[in-house]
């Protein structure tokens, strides 16, 4: 990956970490301490089904992205890494 692309990906990761902590009320979680490849559900951040649909809305509001297919969504939302890459590949400014 080019330096420019990696830099943009890192920006997306950092933005996502802050968004997730704020929007999902992850009390006591420091965005800076979330790993770049943190698994989002069950282990890792321990998110649940309600968080999943909230993330779908976050993607719409903040990146103009629309996940319509549940099965596709499960793969995209697997980890911070898969989510960040999806945004980078598909967002208007990605």
């Amino acid at each position: 990956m080019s330096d420019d692309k990696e830099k943009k990906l890192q920006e997306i990761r950092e933005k996502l970490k802050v968004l997730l902590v704020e929007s999902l009320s992850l009390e006591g979680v420091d965005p800076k301490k979330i790993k770049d490849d943190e698994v989002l559900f069950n282990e890792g951040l321990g998110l649940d089904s309600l968080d999943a649909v909230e993330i779908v809305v976050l993607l719409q509001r903040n990146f103009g992205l629309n996940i319509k297919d549940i099965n596709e969504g499960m793969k995209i939302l697997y980890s911070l890494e898969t989510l960040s890459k999806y945004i980078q590949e598909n967002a208007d400014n990605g």
Partner: protein
Amino acid sequence: MDRIAITGIGAVSAAGGNLKEILRSFESGKRNAASPSVFKTSLTYPVFEVLSMPCPEQKGDRTISLAMVAIKEALSQAGFIDGLKGRNAGVCLGTTVASQLNDIDFYRVFKNKQTVQMEKIERFVKGNLAETVSRRVNAEGPSATVVNACSSGADAIGIAISWIKSGLCDIAVAGGADELESVPLCGFRSLGIVSDILCAPFDRNRKGLNLGEGAGVLILERESNARGRGIAPKVFVTGYGSVSDAYHLTAPHPEGIGLELALKTVLKQGKVTAKEVAFINAHGTATLDNDKVETKVLKKVFGDNVKFFSTKGYTGHTLGAAGGLEAAFTASALDVGWMPSSAGFVEIDEEIGIAPIMVKTQIDKKFAISTSLAFGGNNAALLFERAE
């Protein structure tokens, strides 16, 4: 044993303006869903609207109007055409929408101009469902508006039964009413559980619920009270179970522990075995989770040959009205002797493994159950018994 008798039933939904019309829709399989006309929206999801009720000028009256249509029908059947004055009567009704100030225009005006449209507030504050209905039918006993999401109507019936048994009132108007509105449509859609096509409860390809509106009401009293008025009751409510999953705000417990316990509670209360139950009028919203969990429990409690159906294919999910409407349908099914097909079902889901009733079917036993699984994790079950 002085059973709780149902002496009047009233219902209004997209399937019909009264119980007779609704039963005709069940027989014909007619499903009256369309794009909403009672509110403006850019969303394109089918809803089950009560077209026989014109859109009122004043927002907020629709739920009360729907409730009064069903209540008038029920009171007339029970022989209370002139109301309930002097009868020690209570009113317990479930709703969701009517209890919230979900007025987008109101909020928009407040946000932009910092002014409060007081006529809307006056209507809201004076429009508590059970209190308003109590005044209109001259009921002088207890009243309560239950706001328990999808089990509100069933829980309202359960409370009314408790009131009568503990002597707080002799007669009760109980059930639920809710109007269609854009706010719950947007909200449920954001949860990913609204279908953009006609709902298909229990079907392999189900995509979620369709919203609906309506009202379903029962007139309840002790059997001795009814017979004292010269009425021979045809159906009784002989059990009410209410159990919390204590699991999650929006998802049902994956093993359906609350529903299982609610079903076992009503069977115990009614001194009935699972085999004696003719059918279950299931909650059957057509969401992936609800239908999977609910049928898992039905199989566990009643066996793989359980007869069940959902009427939400004819009415949509009427939220606070659902428990009341479905109680009305269950009681009247026992009365008329047949159960409707589960509209929308085409193909069995392997994960579920069983199919609902697919054709109009005669009832050969005298007990039936209606279930309601609420957003928030409450599970309600009502047991009905046909008279000998």
